[in-house]
Each structure stands twice: as C-alpha cells, then as structure tokens.
C-alpha cells in the first residue's frame, strides 16, 4: 500500500514537472524576441559562469555555518540573566528584521567593511569583498538562526526533561541520546529553509562586487548582449541549488511532524 502510494507520488510529481516544463517551452516559443534568442553566445563564458555558481554555493555554505554559530550565540544572549546582553541581542534582531538584505549588505560594506580595510591598509580586491560580503550575509541571517534554535529548544517539553532526570540519565546521556537526536531532526528543515534563503540572498552580494553567480552572468551579459539568455541561465542555475534544498526541507518536515 505504501509502495503504491510512493509510486503514485513519484509519478504525479514527474507529471507536474513535465507540465511545468511544457509551460516554460511555450513561454519561450511565444517570446517575441525568440528569433534573436541565442543561448550559444554565452558558451564561451561558461567557465566564469560555473565559477560564479560555485562561489555562490561556497559563500552560502560558509554563511550558513557562521550564521548558525552567531545564531546560537544570539540564542544564548536571549536567555542571559544579564539584561544588557539580552537587549543587545534583541536590538540587533530588530535592526536585521527591519532592514532589506540589500540595504544591510551595502551599509555593512561601506560603513564597516571599507573603514576596516582602510585602517588595515588593505585594498578592495574581489577576495576582500567576498569575505566582507560573506560576513555581512552571516550577520543578517544570525537572528533568523536564533529563532530556529529557540523553536527547536521549545519543542522539547519540560516533562521530557523531568522524565530524563527521574530515569536517572546523566547530563551527557540526556544530550547524547535524547536531546541532540531530537534537535538535529527538528533543526534540519528550518536550517535547509534558511540555506535556501541564503542562496537567494547571496545574489545581492552583486551590489558590492562579489563575483558570485549573478555578478558573473551580468558580466557575461554586458559582453555578449545576451541579456534575456543570461537571466534564463541564472534562473535555472539558482533552481538547481534551491529545489533540492526545498525537497530536503519538506522531507524532514514530514518526518518530524510524524512524531507529534
């Protein structure tokens, strides 16, 4: 029964994907400028486009890792009994939630990154911009990560902690066998969701000249005039990263909801 259901699900998903593909082809066929649609103009630029795509992935993964660490620190701040620490975290969170990502990135780059560069006597190389951009993106994601941790911690109810104590588990055993396995499964869907958000958000690093996918394709477009073709390639290349992440998120969300 489950196997039939699974086969049916795979078939339906493939059919939906096929219909969607047809729709995309139809849109391209109906596109008024299709006579001049020349994807091959971008072929000589494929190396730098792939390089940009890889940089997007690397920047996203590094930002995810840093923002997880910062998010956990913000979570600890939010639990601090020292109110100044608690409010420092709250104010930072409100600043982030109140700012568009692109504005936040530009402000961090020009008002914090650049002065630090000048102070240290560093020039603004692509690598340098990449580092500042990654840090800025991580800072922006940190309060979102803090919320993920808060939600996960709250999902293990007090009764479970009491039960662990009454059963005589040591602190190590509580974390090793009960808390961390639950947290990992609870954390994976929102973390994968946030990674999708980071991948999409990383396109805005173009505004500070980071050579990621958006930036590299823009370079290719301005050299070949293949503007529409460039955006189509960009669209597909982002989806190649984000669709699997969304599928992973849904898969683990289903698994976790099966517990409750």
């Amino acid at each position, binding site marked *: 029964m489950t196997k039939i259901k699974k086969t049916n699900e795979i078939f339906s998903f493939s059919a939906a994907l096929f219909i969607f593909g047809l729709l995309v082809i139809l849109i391209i066929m109906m596109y008024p400028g299709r006579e001049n649609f020349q994807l091959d103009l971008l072929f000589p630029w494929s190396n730098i486009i792939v390089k940009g795509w890889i940089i997007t992935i690397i920047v996203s993964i590094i930002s995810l890792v840093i923002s997880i660490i910062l998010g956990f620190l913000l979570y600890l701040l939010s639990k601090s009994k020292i109110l100044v620490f608690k409010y420092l975290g709250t104010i930072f969170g409100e600043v982030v939630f109140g700012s568009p990502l692109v504005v936040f990135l530009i402000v961090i780059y020009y008002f914090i990154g650049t002065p630090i560069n000048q102070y240290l006597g560093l020039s603004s190389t692509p690598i340098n911009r990449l580092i500042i951009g990654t840090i800025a993106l991580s800072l922006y994601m940190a309060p979102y990560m803090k919320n993920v941790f808060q939600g996960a911690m709250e999902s293990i109810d007090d009764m479970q902690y*009491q039960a662990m104590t009454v059963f005589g*588990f040591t602190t190590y055993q509580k974390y090793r066998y009960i808390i961390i396995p*639950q947290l990992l499964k609870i954390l994976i869907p929102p973390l994968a969701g946030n990674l999708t958000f980071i991948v999409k958000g990383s396109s805005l690093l173009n505004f500070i000249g980071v050579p990621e996918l958006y930036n590299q394709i823009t370079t290719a477009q301005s050299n070949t005039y293949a503007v529409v073709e460039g955006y189509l390639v960009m669209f597909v290349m982002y989806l190649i990263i984000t669709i699997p992440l969304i599928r992973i998120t849904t898969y683990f969300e289903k698994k976790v909801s099966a*517990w409750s």
Partner: protein
Amino acid sequence: MELKLKNVCKKYDDKDILIDINAHIKDRSAIAIIGPSGAGKSTLLRLLSLIETPDCGRICVNDNHLSEISPEEYYKKIGFVFQTHTLFPHLTVLRNITLILEKVHNKTVVEAKKIALDLLEHFELTEHIHKRAGQLSGGQSQRVSIVRSLAISPEVLFLDEPTSSLDPVLTQEVLKTIIKLKLDNMNFVIVTHEILFAKKAADYIIFMEEGRIVEMGDVSILDDPKTWELKQFLSNVFLW
C-alpha cells in the same frame, strides 16, 4: 512498602502547598492519594519521589531516607509516571524501554530487549513495539509509559494522575493496566481523581485537602468516612 513522613511542609512563592504532613504507613502495596484539585496531592508525590525536596520535615520510603540519599541513586530504585506520557518521540516503543535499561541500569542489549519484550507482552502491547509515540493513542502511550517505568523493577512506582489527560474510554484502558499492577503485587502510590478505581485498586487511601492530610486509612473510609471534609468530597464526587 513503608512510608514515613514527619512534619513535612512545602511552599511555592510563599504559598503553603503542604502543611505539617505526618504519616506512617506500613505493609501496604497500593496507596491512593485523593482529594480536590489544589489539595497538594501531586506535590506530595513529587516529594516522595524526590523530584522535589521538602522545605521542612523528613521523608522515608522503605529504607531510603530521602534527605540522605542522592537523587541519582534513589531514581534507580523508583519509577514515576507523569500526568501525560513522556515517551521520547524520536524512539520506538521498544527503544524507549531498552535505552534506559542499557544506559542507566547497565543491562546488555540482549537482557534489555528480553525484559522489554516480556513486559510489553504481559501488558498486551507487543504489536506496538516498533511504533513511535506519535503513532499510538493517548491510552497506549500512557500504558507504555507505565511499562517503561516497570522495566527497571522499581521498589515503588509513583503515578501522578496518569489518566487526567485521557477521555473516558482511554482512561479505562490505563486503569485496567494499573489494576494488573495490583494483581502483580507491585508497590505503587497513585494520585487519582477516579474514586471508584481507587476503591478497587488501592489498599490504603490518603485524603488531602488544602495542603493537609485530613483522613487516611483502609479503603473502607470511602464507604464510611470519619471526617466531614471527606464526606463532603465524596458527596460532591457522586453528585449524580
């Protein structure tokens, strides 16, 4: 089992929850604590199980002087069933039981599995061994919680209103399991609102009101209460 409580008191935020509790109960295997909500029943049970400590007085359960024994040592000797089931949701029914036996009670994998399977069979839960808590009904989850607490062969099992979150049908399912404990001569102390059940399952009754023990004795006190408070309580319970 033997319970000794001497001048026990407990406060929460300066509010008296338990006031001068004294009792010495010997040679009883099933004790039911009854009384209206807010009487301090659950708090008393939590003190008896050392989940909390009293603000004053002394408690002794069998040979365990609770002010002298370490909680970790005491927890290895007792079982506790909470108002709602506390099964670990990421583990199967079987693993919920074997994990504690292996990690806390140092049983081998084979021993732990045998103990768990024997108990689950005894309580007619074998068909659920590979399910997780989310796949069980409230009654089944609570029954597994009871079995999990029994697996460590506790000296005493404490049950804190184990049916309070269940509907009447599921309540019966859990109560039948507790009656089985009585037939197995298990020592247990239960806080319950089910008076008819207390009459059937317990051999000693403690009636509490406003933080004090008002009356205690054999189950016969439920038919022939000595105090006005217990009479009043029973007449309210059996209003219909």
